[in-house]
């Protein structure tokens, strides 16, 4: 009781301190969500600040270690415990402060380094991540290995203190903007396919690395193909044991699925609601109901399913907070979130008639063109990060315990 009491007092003291500091140091321009994904600060050597406010906000937060609040101070964090970190989060949300830094390195690589990395690796890589100096990309998929991720064939052959890497990665988001890549390579071609895989960190500035952006049905994309030709990588960049790559990768994938489904859900919330769009495009009756009752029913259906999906996400978040791990439930969230998302985007363009079919040009408004690109882009959501079919397989096996 007195422990809990003193803990409470400590947290409230921290809350007061954080509140005061944030009030003083968070620039007004940073107290609103970014207007787009691109307007966020993702770090890296090639990154440019959108504004002076953005730069100041990052630098001040970095100085306090609050870009990575729970990390130990020696890695660029602030050494906060989970409760204090939540207080900080609450206080940032209170004033609408945006995250000073978005970072794949922080979300995905760091947990791996904490669990499987060496002390040297942590000291080398974590501080630049926390400071937003180095941007990471993820090199998992390969052209020949879609859903069958473990059949990857990019080779890393040991040569003294170096690995020599040859092969090709695909769907590496922002490989053209990233400084480093964490990736899966095959270090032992003789072992069964899941066993010969290792987790390797590669400096994208190394000779022999070539990046080519991928054009999608929705137009330009953040995705790239990355080619490795006799790229020499120091052996100390191996994370975990040689052959442990698959275990590490699987842990990461569950995180990724959860991230995708939440990202999607957050993103769509800001769009104009379907019903408002529909009223504008097809009109409404005297009581304000969308004039086309069949369309109205479909909109209600999608909205209703999206509501259910949000509630299911809330349920699983609550369950996690209550101590359960992100398990195969993330497959359900990923599957349903992306399917809902596709249905919503489809409906959005359908409502707009031929105006929802514009590709470019002044005949269309920017919002119209965006809804078209978003719709086409959404087709990939049920493929990337594990196809819907793979999620169904995972659910059948791990949640339902079905054989096969």
């Amino acid at each position, binding site marked *: 009781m007195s422990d809990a009491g003193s803990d409470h007092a400590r947290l409230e003291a921290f809350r007061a301190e954080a509140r005061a500091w944030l009030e003083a140091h968070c620039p007004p321009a940073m107290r609103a969500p970014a207007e787009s994904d691109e307007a966020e600060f993702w770090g890296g050597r090639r990154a440019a600040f959108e504004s002076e406010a953005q730069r100041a906000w990052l630098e001040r937060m970095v100085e306090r270690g609050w870009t990575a609040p729970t990390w130990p101070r020696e890695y660029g964090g602030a050494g906060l415990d989970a409760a204090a970190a939540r207080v900080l989060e609450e206080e940032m949300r209170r004033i609408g402060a945006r995250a000073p830094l978005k970072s794949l390195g922080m979300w995905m690589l760091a947990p791996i380094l904490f669990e499987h990395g060496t002390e040297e690796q942590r000291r080398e890589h974590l501080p630049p991540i926390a400071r937003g100096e180095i941007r990471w990309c993820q090199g998992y998929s390969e052209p020949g290995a879609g859903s069958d991720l473990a059949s990857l064939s990019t080779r890393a052959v040991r040569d003294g203190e170096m690995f020599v890497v040859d092969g090709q990665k695909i769907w590496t988001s922002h490989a053209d903007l990233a400084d480093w890549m964490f990736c899966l390579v095959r270090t032992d071609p003789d072992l069964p396919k899941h066993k010969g895989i290792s987790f390797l960190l590669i400096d994208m500035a190394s000779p022999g690395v070539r990046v080519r952006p991928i054009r999608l049905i929705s137009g330009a994309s953040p995705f790239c193909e990355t080619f490795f030709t006799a790229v020499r990588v120091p052996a100390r960049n191996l994370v975990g044991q040689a052959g442990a790559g698959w275990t590490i990768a699987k842990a990461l994938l569950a995180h990724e699925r959860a991230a995708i489904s939440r990202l999607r859900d957050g993103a769509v919330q800001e769009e104009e609601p379907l019903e408002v769009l529909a009223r504008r495009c097809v009109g409404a009756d005297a009581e304000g109901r969308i004039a086309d009752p069949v369309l109205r029913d479909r909109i*209600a259906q999608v909205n209703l399913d999206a509501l259910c999906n949000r509630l299911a996400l809330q349920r699983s978040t609550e369950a996690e907070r209550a101590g359960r791990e992100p398990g195969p439930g993330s497959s359900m969230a990923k599957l349903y979130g992306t399917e809902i998302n596709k249905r919503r985007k489809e409906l959005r363009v359908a409502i707009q008639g031929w105006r929802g079919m514009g590709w470019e040009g002044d005949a269309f408004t920017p919002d119209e063109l965006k809804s078209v690109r978003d719709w086409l882009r959404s087709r990939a959501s049920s493929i990337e990060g594990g196809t819907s079919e793979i999620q169904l397989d995972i659910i*059948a096996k791990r949640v339902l315990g079905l054989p096969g």
Partner: protein
Amino acid sequence: MATTRTLLWSEDEELIRRSARDLVQARMPISHFRALRDAGSAIGMSREVWREMAGLGFAGALIPERWGGAGLGLVACAIVLEECGRTLAPTATLATAVLAATALVEGGADATRDAELPRIASGESVLGFAHDEGLHHARDGVSTRAAAGADGFTLHGEKSFVLDGTAADAFLVSARTDAGRIDLFLVPRTSRGLRITPLALVDHRSAARLALEGVRVAKGAVLSRKDGALLPRLCDRGAALLAAEMLGSTEEVFARTLAWLKERRQFGVPIGSFQALRHRAAAMSCEIELTRSIVLAAVRALEADATDAPALASAAKARATDTFLLVAAEGIQMHGGLGVTDEVDIGLFYKRAWTSRGIFGDAAFHRDRFARLGGY
């Protein structure tokens, strides 16, 4: 419409579930339902078991202690109904413990509450819910009239579908007053001028038609809220709580189907190893998970009297309906020839899914309402 109310079960709620489940599984396994069905039971439920449930506080779950209730709350009722759904247990929970209790507590005169609520809480008194008049559920479709007189009301009209109609000692009848608003009236089964026709439904649920030909009731028989919102509140509760029962049934059908997929062998392997069936099973489990979330959200919102409660209630009924229909149909198909025989229980659930579908409004009805409440 995200909610700040938790979507997890509390420890207390888990205890209620345990207690409800033990009772239902022990006293009303599905063989209980079959036995009542095969006996052609006109009552459609066991009064003895209902008194036992009352002993656990379930009959008086929404009734304050001063009238002998347990005050467990609406979530407890949802839990009980979910457990009942698993075995198709026929009880008075929905019409009596939820709807009648709500109507009396919120809309009854003191003397009426003093007289009626203790008898509900003890499990003595069972009521039927008499609102619908057409083929389909409609909130305002009431042409039954209650004419006020010096010493009470005289009711004229017909009720086409009365929940627990064969089992009830009295009925909660919606009727239009002289002022044109819709109130509810307590009408004893033995009233003169009341004609009750039992309905033999495909799922053997207790239901009846009523004809009210100048039925006279006392002044205290009227149940009404000042804001006139009693009937919509009852219908919301009915829809959401029925959704909870449907969720329980859905989970049971799915569990049985899953077990069958693991057990039944064809072409030398369990049929659950066929990917087409596995994917369909996985997709169903997602639908069920979504349904769980919305049903609980709706019941918690109703209990909290939140402003989004009506929309959530409609969402829950729409969702539970579609999911139950899907899972029951897939349950039959995946059971193959066995699934269409009366020997296994899947067909009982399938029929239940289809009657529950329309009660308190089908999925299209609730999507329409969800849209209307959303302002479009």
